[in-house]
């Protein structure tokens, strides 16, 4: 008990730039959330009867989950393909993925009008099995459990529970296989959610292939997030990372950039096929057409080439730039399907209110706070305690 209480205390300086910016936003977000539950969703959002899903779904959930895809890709590489050289980033990636799901699926609760009924599809007060959202809801829940199991050895090591470490580590492979299967289905499922909104989404972004496009793009979305987040954590938490791991990090980034380039090539090729088959040439010379070309050329083709070039030349800074461009591209793509291209022909467009943006930022900052709390205590970046190595 004393140990836990001690660990709860904050570590490190309180007056950092990050804290000074994030604390007021988190407090303001909290106030807004109270207003939302008191006066209704319309009191702080600009949602309308025609556009019922806005920033909280389009960005927090749909984009957030794509970025969290790194966990299933990295665990696939390390545990299924046995690419052991990526082992050092498994824990931090899984932790990030887990927290992303908890917070972004958690943000979903803010968007539910009747959140007290959220348990209904689980307990069977209506198994809506014909619903894509039913699948996505179950998968979010199951995937969070799978990721918690994958991460649990770190918790056991922190608590010094030697037997638990052994048992929980034994469950990793099963959790990984289950997790990858779930991810395949719900990453594509998030796209499949929009299949019935056929006439509402701009034809350049609507096709029956949205699920496949969402799945393929989640691979490099997740990896770009791993590159981006890894570059930041390596600086911020550099005291926890051994010399050896620091050197190793650049090699990992280079490997990831090769995979990103490959996945993006597949994605770009798919997009071309979809475009040609849907015969949407006429739209290209419209405003939305220019925007579509910007997305495809500036935020898919360009970062793809950058990834390949920087992999060949071993240019670490360019890899990071490519990752940022790719992430912007994913944000643009997901918002184009869910918000910008949704009801593009309506007289009045939905633009998120400042309060929706503040709540979104508050959710992200809270997640980073929890992430920092965990990394400062658990063996995520730093080496596992010595006793874990003395198995035999």
């Amino acid at each position, binding site marked *: 008990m004393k140990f836990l209480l001690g660990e709860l205390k904050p570590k490190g300086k309180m007056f950092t730039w990050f804290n000074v910016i994030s604390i007021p936003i988190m407090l303001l977000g909290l106030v807004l959330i109270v207003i939302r539950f008191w006066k209704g969703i319309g009191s702080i959002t600009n949602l309308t009867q025609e556009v019922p899903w806005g920033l909280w779904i389009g960005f927090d959930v749909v984009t957030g989950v794509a970025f969290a895809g790194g966990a299933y890709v990295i665990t696939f590489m390390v545990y*299924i393909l*046995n690419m052991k050289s990526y082992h050092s980033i498994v824990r931090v990636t899984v932790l990030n993925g887990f927290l992303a799901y908890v917070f972004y699926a958690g943000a979903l609760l803010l968007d539910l009008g009747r959140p007290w009924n959220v348990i*209904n*599809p689980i307990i069977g007060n209506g198994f809506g099995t014909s619903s894509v959202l039913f699948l996505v809801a179950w998968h979010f829940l199951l995937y969070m459990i799978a990721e918690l199991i994958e991460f649990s050895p770190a918790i056991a090591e922190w608590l010094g529970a030697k037997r638990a470490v052994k048992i929980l580590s034994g469950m990793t492979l099963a959790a990984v296989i289950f997790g990858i299967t779930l991810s395949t289905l719900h990453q594509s499922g998030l796209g499949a959610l*929009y299949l019935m909104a056929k006439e509402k989404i701009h034809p350049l972004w609507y096709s029956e292939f949205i699920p496949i496009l969402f799945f393929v793009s989640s691979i490099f979305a997740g990896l770009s997030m791993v590159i981006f987040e890894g570059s930041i954590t390596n600086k911020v938490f550099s005291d926890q990372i051994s010399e050896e791991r620091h050197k190793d990090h650049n090699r990992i980034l280079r490997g990831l950039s090769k995979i990103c380039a490959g996945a993006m090539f597949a994605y770009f090729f798919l997009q071309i096929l979809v475009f040609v088959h849907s015969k949407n040439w006429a739209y290209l010379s419209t405003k939305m057409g220019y925007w579509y070309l910007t997305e495809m050329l500036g935020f898919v083709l360009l970062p793809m080439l950058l990834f390949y070039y920087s992999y060949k030349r071993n240019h670490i800074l360019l890899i990071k730039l490519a990752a940022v461009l790719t992430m912007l591209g994913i944000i643009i793509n997901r918002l184009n399907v869910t918000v910008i291209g949704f009801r593009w022909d309506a007289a009045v467009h939905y633009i998120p209110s400042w309060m929706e943006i503040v709540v979104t930022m508050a959710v992200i900052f809270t997640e980073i706070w929890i992430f920092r709390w965990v990394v400062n205590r658990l063996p995520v970046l730093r080496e596992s305690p010595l006793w874990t190595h003395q198995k035999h």
Partner: protein
Amino acid sequence: MSFLGGSKLNAKPAAKDPVEFKAILYDSTRCVGCQSCEFSCAEAHGLPEPEDYLEVGKVRKTNENCRTVVNAYETSKGEVYVKRQCMHCNQPACASACLTQAMHKTEEGPVIWRGDKCMGCRYCMVSCPFDVPKFEYHSANPKINKCTMCFERLQEGKLPACVENCPAEALVFGTRRELIAEARRRIAENPDVYYDHIYGETEAGGTSFLYLSPVPFEELGFNTKVQNSSYPELTKGFLYSVPSIFVLWPMILLGIQDATKKLNHKKTDDHE
């Protein structure tokens, strides 16, 4: 397939009488734009009385307090009125979208909303091609508001409120089959009066609200982009792939895992 003993396989369950979908036929050549349907609907469901009147050029919409509206359109054949409400699709997008079955296609045809199941996710609104379900954005306990074809009244043996109170007989209630036959008869008998199409016969896979009009439906602000097959059909391919991925993926992953593990052992053996 009869050689497989098909007659037995195809036998219908004997116990239950098949229930036919109920429907409403709206004939805009008869509608006089009196809004009686709006007022009676509000009264029947305890909603506030409509405060604005229809006007050519003004598109009024249903909302969280109003389940049906009548609008006026200036067309090639003069002023035409159109009543709007839920279309009660045969295979509703909203009901297939609903993860708790709160949106529900009843056996009798009306599509209803059940508050004890609904979690307020608004996926029904995203999916509905006619933008029918409306959400109470300014309530801490929000409900979805939409026409239910007066399902409770139907169960008491009454007519839907709008049908009962229409003074011009523009609205007729019956089984969907009867009403399509009736609509066809009207078109055949007065080909000069009617535009030769029943909106709702095939739209969105068929609906239980059927429309007759003197002019093409795009002149009346109808969604004519709506597809003729049902909307749940669009997600079928994805949902059907789920079980196969669920079974095959773990097998394939285990196989790859096993193969690469052996490869890795070989590699490390070579190094040592």
